[in-house]
C-alpha cells in the first residue's frame, strides 16, 4: 500500500507554480521523506512544464493546467520510493493536461491528468484497449499504482 502524502502545497499568489521548490518544502515538512530516482526525475521534468506558454508546441497548445500538474505530482509522490520504475515517463499534452505513461513490451498504460479533477486511464495490450475516466482521489491513485506495479512485476495487465 502506498503512503498518502498531503496535497500539493498551493501558493495562490503565484501565477506559475514551482513544483520543485514546493516539493523541497514538502520534504522539510515531512522530515525529509526520501524519494526514488524515478520520482525525482519525474518531478524535475514535471516542473519544466511550468515554463510552457501559449502555443508552446507551435500548434496553439495551451499552458499546462495547474490542477493537472498537481494531480500528476500527487500520483508521483504516492509511488513507492523503494522501487525504480524505469519505464515511467511524463509529458505535457497540448490541451493543458499532463500524461504519465508506461510501456513494456506490448503493454502500454497511460494516465492523462485533467484540470477538472479527473484522470483518463488508458491501457493497450496487443489489440485489446481499455479506457476509463475516474475521479482522481486516493482510491483511484491506489488502483493506478497497482496497475503500474502489475506491469512492472508481470510485464502484462492480463
Amino acid at each position, binding site marked *: 500500500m502506498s503512503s498518502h502524502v498531503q496535497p500539493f502545497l498551493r501558493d495562490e499568489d503565484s501565477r506559475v507554480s514551482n513544483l520543485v521548490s514546493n516539493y523541497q518544502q514538502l520534504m522539510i515538512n515531512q522530515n525529509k521523506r526520501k524519494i526514488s530516482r524515478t520520482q525525482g526525475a519525474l518531478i524535475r521534468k514535471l516542473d519544466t512544464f511550468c515554463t510552457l506558454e501559449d502555443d508552446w508546441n507551435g500548434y496553439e497548445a495551451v499552458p499546462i493546467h495547474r490542477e493537472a500538474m498537481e494531480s500528476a505530482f500527487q500520483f508521483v509522490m504516492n509511488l513507492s520510493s523503494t522501487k525504480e520504475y524505469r519505464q515511467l515517463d511524463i509529458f505535457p*499534452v497540448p490541451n493543458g493536461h499532463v500524461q504519465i505513461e508506461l510501456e513494456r513490451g506490448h503493454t502500454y498504460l497511460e494516465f492523462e491528468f485533467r484540470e477538472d479533477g479527473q484522470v483518463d486511464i488508458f491501457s493497450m495490450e496487443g489489440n485489446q484497449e481499455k479506457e476509463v475516466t475516474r475521479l482522481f482521489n486516493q482510491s483511484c491513485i491506489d488502483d493506478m499504482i497497482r496497475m503500474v506495479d502489475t506491469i512492472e512485476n508481470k510485464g502484462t495487465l492480463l
Partner: protein
Amino acid sequence: MKIKEPFYNYEKMYRAVKPLEQMWKKDEHGNQIPSSAVFKDSKGVSVDRQNYRDNQDAVNFIQWNFKDSSIISVTVNDCEEVEANYLSDPTEANPYHCIIRGSDTMELRKAQAKRLSKKAVLETQ
C-alpha cells in the same frame, strides 16, 4: 490498401515537434520514440503533406515554418492502418497543410494517437 485521393501510396505527412526533450522518451531497447501526446489535438493533428516533393525539400519547408523544432513523419498508410482520417486543408501560407483526425471526432482516440506515435519516424532533430 486504398489510399484516398489526392494522396498517394506511402506519401509522408510531416509534423513539427517541440520541445524535443519533453516529448520524446527512450523505449526499453534505448530507442527514441515520441510520446502519443504529440498526436493529441482537439482540433485534429496539423501536418504538411509531402505532395511529390523530395523528402529533404519537404522537411526544409516545414522546418522553415517551425524553427527550433524537430520534424517527424508518418505515412498515409500508417493513418489508414490506425483508421485515422486525413484530409487536405491548404492555407494561403501553406499549400501542403493537412489534418489527421479521428473517425467521429477531430481528436484522435488515445489508441490511434499511441499507434501513430509508434510509427513515427524522426526526420531531423
